[in-house]
């Protein structure tokens, strides 16, 4: 256990084939499980997609989705706090030059904004982001 482990956030990655209203089916399961969605993105592949979701109760959400026939994996991501002002993202990128980001998505959470990223090497990512003076959100903020 590293003290940096608290910055590892459990994201649900859901495989979705190209079929009408798969998103609706995911959302329905989460609704019925009274699970709140905190962040969300859809990535489109060749005939299929991956739905990535941050939720308040990831373990329960995963079980419910699997029970409903979905293919679900946990993926560890990082949540970087940004200024909710013009230039907020730019200020981050300067500190992230050396980190290999696989994908990312953002959301606004006043008074600040959040950038979710999956990085290639999460331990090294956490260390260099912290060393660069960035603020990472603790996973208790989510779960």
């Amino acid at each position, binding site marked *: 256990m590293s003290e940096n482990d608290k910055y590892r956030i459990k994201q649900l990655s859901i*495989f979705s084939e190209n079929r009408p209203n798969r998103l609706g089916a995911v959302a329905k399961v989460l609704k019925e499980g009274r699970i709140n969605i905190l962040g969300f993105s859809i990535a489109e*592949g*060749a005939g*299929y997609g991956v739905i990535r979701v941050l939720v308040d109760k990831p373990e329960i959400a995963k079980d419910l989705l699997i029970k409903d*026939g979905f293919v679900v994996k946990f*993926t560890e991501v990082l949540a970087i706090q940004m200024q909710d002002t013009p230039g907020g993202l730019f200020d981050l990128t300067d500190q992230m030059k050396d980190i290999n980001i*696989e994908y990312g998505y953002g959301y606004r959470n006043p008074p600040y904004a959040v950038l979710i990223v999956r990085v290639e090497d999460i331990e090294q990512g956490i260390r260099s982001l912290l060393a660069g003076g960035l603020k990472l959100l603790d996973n208790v903020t989510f779960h």
Partner: protein
Amino acid sequence: MSYWNPVEVMPVPELKALQLKQLKMLVYKLYTFSPFYRQKMKEAGVTPEDIQELDDVRKLPFMTKKDLRDGYPDKLFLASPREVVRYHASSGTTGKPTIVGYTQSDIDGWSESVARGLVSAGVGTDDVLQVCYTYGLFSGGLGLHYGAEKVGAAVVPASTGNTERQIDLVRDLNVTVIAATPSYLLHMGEVAERMGVDIRKDTKLRLGILGAEPWSERMRDRIYEHLGIKAIDIYGTSELSGPLWCECAEQDGIHVWGDLTLVEVLDPNTGEPVPPGQRGELVVTMLQKEALPIVRYRTGDITTLYEEVCACGRTHPRIGRIQGRVDDMIIVRGINVFPSQVEHSLMQNPEVGNEFQIVVDRKGALDSMLVKVELRPEAFGDRLFELDAIKDRLTHKLRDALNVGVNVEIVEPGSLPRFEGKAKRVVDKRVY
């Protein structure tokens, strides 16, 4: 090497000369004595003098299931009723059954064929062979029975049904060889387990002579792993007599006795031979059958032909495991595609499941083929490029195997239709 009949190791040129001699005699006999065959040969413009070499068999007209059905019950018989000593009948799924008559010589030739196969698989006088094929109009039970008796094995004619009693017999009579459908053998394994009988420890079963339904290499492995039984593939249909040919102990193709049978493997569309090792329809000429002669009978079964001498030393041609039916074949951009080829290619990929669906469509003048496969949950890991790589790998594999352009779609597990019994793998959306 031990064999039943020295003819099994006859040098290939001699075997071919023997086949030609027998083919000539057969054609002469049919042309002279069989109104049905004479009519067919006249329509095809062929006479006995046209048969000068083995390849001339291709001049002869084909025979189909329909001919046999139309000939009900005995219009195609060459033997007189006095000479017939037995009848079998195939189940008629579309109405009338097909009746097959046997002279004493037919029964002898049939038993000889099975006996050779059993010996090649390692069955002998010390063995106790339980026949779990149905006895009766179906030719499976009696076919195995006569062949096994001929080699001097003790036969347990258990037929089908009452699985618990079957297992008691296997244990109490020290049965070493079992002849059954592969699915029934696996079922026996399950029932034995419930009865507290360990097939490996509590019985002497070592060999299974399995056929009468499609099965796979994977089932062979499963039978060996679960039950410790070496599984031998056997082939035959009632039209040809019944169960006729099986693999030898090498388990590398089914030996077809060339002195009794001439086999061809043909492109089902063109009727031309496919290159060695390629899939095609099994077409059979029975060289010595008397009561119901069979010439170039289109079995509808898809297989491959191997002419090389087997590692066991037997020189007769071999056919591969039956890989499906001609009816299942689809033609995409002029290329014959069998669902079994798709199944085989997919089987070697742990990322996807066993279910698949083939969707054929036509865009403009061009056919397109899409293969849908289900992702295995363990293969999913959040990254799109990993999914793309799986898809690319499968696409290339299928293209290599089928020689035709294929697109692959990866779908969620459980989303493809499941089938009880025969699976309908192909959705053909083309409008003709």
